[in-house]
């Protein structure tokens, strides 16, 4: 394993931008911007995978990079535009539970929490790239989950879910640089299937209810 300081610095930069895109997905007002931020985030994940691939001399990571480019930056936007076109290009503001400043405040708390969660793991094994990727990946994961919680509409919730996935893989490329190929391929199938299933479901909800504000669906309650 080479510990080139240049690669390390580049990965740190990528990680910082990765976290920014996660924050952006929490805060944006429009669906299209959300989708573009997600594509950008996936690109940054790819860059990190390539950097680590060079540093660790791992072919697996180049495969991860190729799969990420193919599925997350090309296939998913295409699928979403096909299945839920009017949702993606709608130019209205996304309904949300919390206003943007308070959302960002909570998001900052979640980033700190991510470092608290990741810290004990870093103490056990000191691999330089893990120090960058693991806490940032966990932070992006938390922010994605938070996005699902504050968004009331279907497509933004789906993008939050995919952002969580991105976060897991951002940590994953550093902690398991040699994941079996079969697992990578399976993951490559998984993400488009999630998009397809959730996208089709969104379409049916829209056709049946005339809205995709899934946060307002509340007929199933106790009492």
């Amino acid at each position: 394993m080479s510990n080139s300081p240049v690669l390390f610095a580049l990965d740190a930069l990528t990680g910082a931008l990765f976290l920014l895109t996660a924050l952006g997905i929490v805060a944006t007002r429009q669906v299209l911007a959300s989708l573009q931020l997600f594509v950008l985030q996936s690109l940054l994940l790819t860059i990190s995978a390539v950097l680590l691939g060079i540093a660790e001399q791992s072919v697996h990571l180049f495969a991860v990079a190729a799969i990420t480019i193919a599925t997350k930056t090309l296939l998913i936007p295409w699928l979403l535009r096909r299945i839920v076109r009017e949702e993606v290009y709608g130019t209205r503001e996304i309904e949300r539970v919390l206003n943007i400043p308070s959302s960002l405040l909570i998001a900052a708390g979640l980033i700190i929490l991510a470092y608290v969660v990741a810290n004990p793991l870093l103490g056990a094994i000191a691999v330089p790239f893990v120090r960058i990727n693991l806490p940032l990946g966990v932070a992006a994961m938390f922010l994605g989950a938070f996005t699902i919680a504050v968004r009331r509409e279907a497509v933004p919730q789906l993008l939050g879910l995919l952002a969580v996935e991105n976060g897991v893989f951002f940590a994953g490329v550093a902690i398991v640089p040699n994941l079996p190929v079969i697992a990578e391929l399976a993951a490559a199938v998984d993400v488009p299937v999630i998009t397809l299933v959730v996208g089709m479901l969104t379409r049916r909800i829209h056709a049946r209810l005339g809205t995709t504000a899934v946060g307002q669906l509340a007929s199933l309650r106790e009492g």
Partner: protein
Amino acid sequence: MELAGILLIPLLASAFSLLPIGRRFAAPVTIIASAIVLGLAVAVAAEAARTGQVAASGEWLTCDGLGALILLLVAFVGFTAAVFSWGYIAESAKHGRRKSIRLYYCLYNLFVLSMLAVPLLANVALMWIAVELTTLLSAFLVGFDDTPEALEAAWKYVILTTLGAVLALLGFLILYWGSRIAGLEPFTWVGLVEAAPRMPAALLWPAFLFILVGFGTKVGFVPMHTWLPDAHSQAPASICALLSGVETTTVLYVILRLFPVVGVAPGLDARPWFIGFGLLSVAVATLLFIHVRDFKRMFAFSTVEHMGIILVAAGLGGAEAHLGAAFQITGHAIAKSFCFFAAGITVLGMGSQEIASVRGLVRSSPLAAIALLVGGFAIAGAPPFAVFVSELVIFKAGLASGQYLVVAALAVLVVIAFCAVMLHINRMVFGVAENEIHAAIVPMSCKATLLLSAIPLVIIGIYVPPPLYNLLKAAASAMGG
């Protein structure tokens, strides 16, 4: 060979269902396919009970006692639910939605396939994919009725359980990281148990928690259970039987698999977590029972309760408690699927899922009334049913190991839950109806399902055949007890 067959047959049945002739033949073909799968599963389980381990197709597919038990239960409910679907789905899709019948059977077979794959796949990463697919393949089955409520339930189901699965994925990646440090090459359960003592505890611990919380969402542990009563009450009854009876158990199986991995690691104790999550689930489910209004929802809460009981049993530790857990898994899967079949018949007859609108069922639809009563007693844990026996075994094991408080809390909650369930069912069956309702005719296949499902339901509470007992033993020892 059998193991590969078990995975191949549902795939073929699923492809067949999509053909244009599938409209008429998808149902019988699915029933035949699931019957063959059940036969193969019985053979595999018998071998696992005898030898403790069935390995096939090299390093990809394998099945030990615990895996075989889950496999057997999935295959059994997969078969009975297929028989139930025949009449039930034809009845509920009468109004010109013929194309959706083909889609139903296509997805039905794939959904069952994904659940069968979970206990069979040797590679842990692939198993994660199978668990993830159980959600994605059943999403449209949950929303099959196309009502606003069903779609709402399907949405919550997909988003929350997928989120949980992704959280668990991070746990599995950390586990893989640890196993690499410990020098383990193939990422299998057997290998993990072997490598666990050499893994750094700092990795094992967060991995365990991520998986417990992530997959716990899909099992329906409180407080991650909020989607469960919705999905399990809005899906068609045949799908509810699969979701509640075996899907939850399949995911719980993965968590139980972790127990020996974490158990052998120095300086870790997973038991308090199992007992804590388990008791919380039982307690909250019991409270929700009391003022539940929808009887399918009531059975859904009962699933939360039972998953909690099984988790507590695993957490109590020891061979005896684990045997109780294995028996509880078996009893629950059979009784809960039976309950949902009974609930399905009641819904067909009465056209409502509300407890308040079903009164005097014993006069308007005696079959549904008897089924609900039997199912209620079986699931609430009255003698002579299996759940009663397994709960006694668990209590006894807990007392023997001196964990009096846990056993006392569990016993009180179980008794309250029993009373609440039977009170609701009693009102539905014997209550005085305001106006006489003439229940619709119950399809033949639904009646047949009740009979098929009742056979093991009645038998295993009274008499456990020796091969099944050996299988339960093998399953308990795979849990590390």
